[in-house]
């Protein structure tokens, strides 16, 4: 299976496991210094610059950007889209994982491959692909560019694999005896599903869904061709980009900080979930 950027939601032990860890030697200390220098120059200092820039304009810039009616519309649309698409993924992703693990039908390998398509595509190509069918030159004669539906499609496309790839291994490792026991005790299929299977899948679904949410909030490439900067269908990333191009880096930084906070919270939630799942065994 070509797993791409989906982390094993519950399979791998959390990082920083104590086993075999020891104190730094001189060489390792030097390596750590070098790695941290590069990491700082590449990631930490630039991210700090965003925060400083956002704070530097004083609370007022931050406040004026975030209370700007246009930004509020964008913010609401971005979050609603992300929540909606994530719920859609939670349902569809679980169903797809179910088919991949428990069902047998010809063409299953193809289904497995199709799930990887969104990861194999650069984001800008994902947008282009959707416009090829649903754009103004498409064979269907409908045009989703500049519409909310178009943005939802783009984000659903790029986040498709997250829940599938998170649930698939967990479902595969689930023993069927408990289900069979439940069935033999007279539980209906629905009861078995609700009482036995869904609870054990829930951590994996949540993990996949939070990844999908984080991606949906921050998505840019697949949306840019479709939203065409039309008013009301902008997402936070395209708005940030508009501010950057307009030279208003303070406003861009304010929106960026918001995006970063959401990203960080998602990572922490995911880490906590993973640790809890690992502890439960």
């Amino acid at each position, binding site marked *: 299976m070509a797993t791409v950027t989906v982390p094993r939601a519950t399979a791998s032990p959390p990082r920083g496991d104590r086993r075999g*860890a020891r104190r730094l030697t001189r060489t390792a200390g030097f390596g750590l210094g070098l790695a941290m220098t590069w990491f700082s120059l590449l990631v930490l200092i630039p991210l700090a610059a965003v925060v400083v820039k956002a704070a530097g304009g004083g609370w007022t810039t931050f406040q004026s950007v975030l209370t700007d009616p246009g930004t509020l519309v964008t913010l609401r649309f971005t979050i609603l889209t992300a929540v909606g698409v994530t719920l859609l993924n939670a349902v569809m992703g679980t169903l797809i994982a179910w088919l991949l693990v428990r069902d047998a039908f010809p063409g299953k390998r193809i289904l497995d491959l199709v799930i990887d398509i969104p990861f194999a595509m650069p984001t800008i190509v994902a947008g282009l692909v959707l416009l090829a*069918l649903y754009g103004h030159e498409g064979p269907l004669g409908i045009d989703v560019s500049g519409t909310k539906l178009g943005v939802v499609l783009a984000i659903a496309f790029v986040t498709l694999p997250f829940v599938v790839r998170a649930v698939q291994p967990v479902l595969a490792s689930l023993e069927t005896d408990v289900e069979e026991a439940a069935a033999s005790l007279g539980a209906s299929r629905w009861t078995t599903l609700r009482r036995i299977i869904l609870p054990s899948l829930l951590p994996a679904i949540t993990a996949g869904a939070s990844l999908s949410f984080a991606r949906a909030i921050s998505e840019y490439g697949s949306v840019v061709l479709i939203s065409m900067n039309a008013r009301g269908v902008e997402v936070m990333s395209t708005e*940030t980009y508009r501010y950057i191009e307009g030279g208003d880096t303070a406003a861009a930084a304010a929106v960026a900080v918001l995006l970063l906070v959401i990203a960080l919270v998602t990572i922490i939630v995911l880490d906590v979930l993973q640790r809890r799942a690992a502890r439960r065994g």
Partner: protein
Amino acid sequence: MADASSATRTSPRRRTSAGAWVVRAIVAVYLFLLVLWPTAVLFRGAFADGLGTITAAIADPDVVHALVLTGQTAVLAVAINLVFGLGVSLLLVRYDFFGKRVLSWLIDLPLSASPVVVGLALLLVYSPVYGWFGPGLREAGIEVAFAMPGIVMATCFVSLPLVVREVVPVLTELGDDQEQAARSLGAGGWQTFRRITLPGIRWALVYGLVLSLARSLGEFGAVKVVSGHVIGQTATATVAVESAYQNNNTEQAYAIAVLLVLATVLCLVVVAILHTRDAREKG
């Protein structure tokens, strides 16, 4: 793709129920409308007149420039990620130091940071006009933003965690008994690494690298912001796709897109093959 979990665990089921048919139908319609049909239309458009669209695109020097720039950037970014990813993985798994847990969180941040935010962050530090270090670097004759180094940095940023994510679990699972044994028998640090550690993690390392190559080839948002996206100079292949589409040159956009997808698919096929081989070696 030859995943044991999906292939062999199909439990002996009772005859397919009505519910299963409904699920199959829903999934089939959903994936057809969302993924398969659109992808097919793009490919049909790109190959409508055989290889004509693609050869026409390659005849354009700006397109060639964009493709070459993307290739160079990807190779450099992958090389940097190899050194950094390997080093950080070893540190995270084998050593204890202050702030380890925080580092392990921060490493993942690039995966969920919006590409536009990544671009903005780099500009705020390396822009020759208003960046923290940019003006100083420019005086020293080093252009970072709006030039190749900036593009490489943006690409490194977004693909940074991929190697670490692959290598860390394998390294943890491996344990360090063998390494300690080697060391107690008098092997030096480098010898232990080359003879014991590296063979144990080589497949994980290779997956990480191929995944980071695929990600590097496809990066768009961060590169677009940092590069200033000047066609024929700092535009990468993905940026060229966007500008071709916006200039109503849909065919050229399709052609570059298809080339990018094929390159990425090639990467993922390599990963799949390695995965199978790895599983066979372990099994």
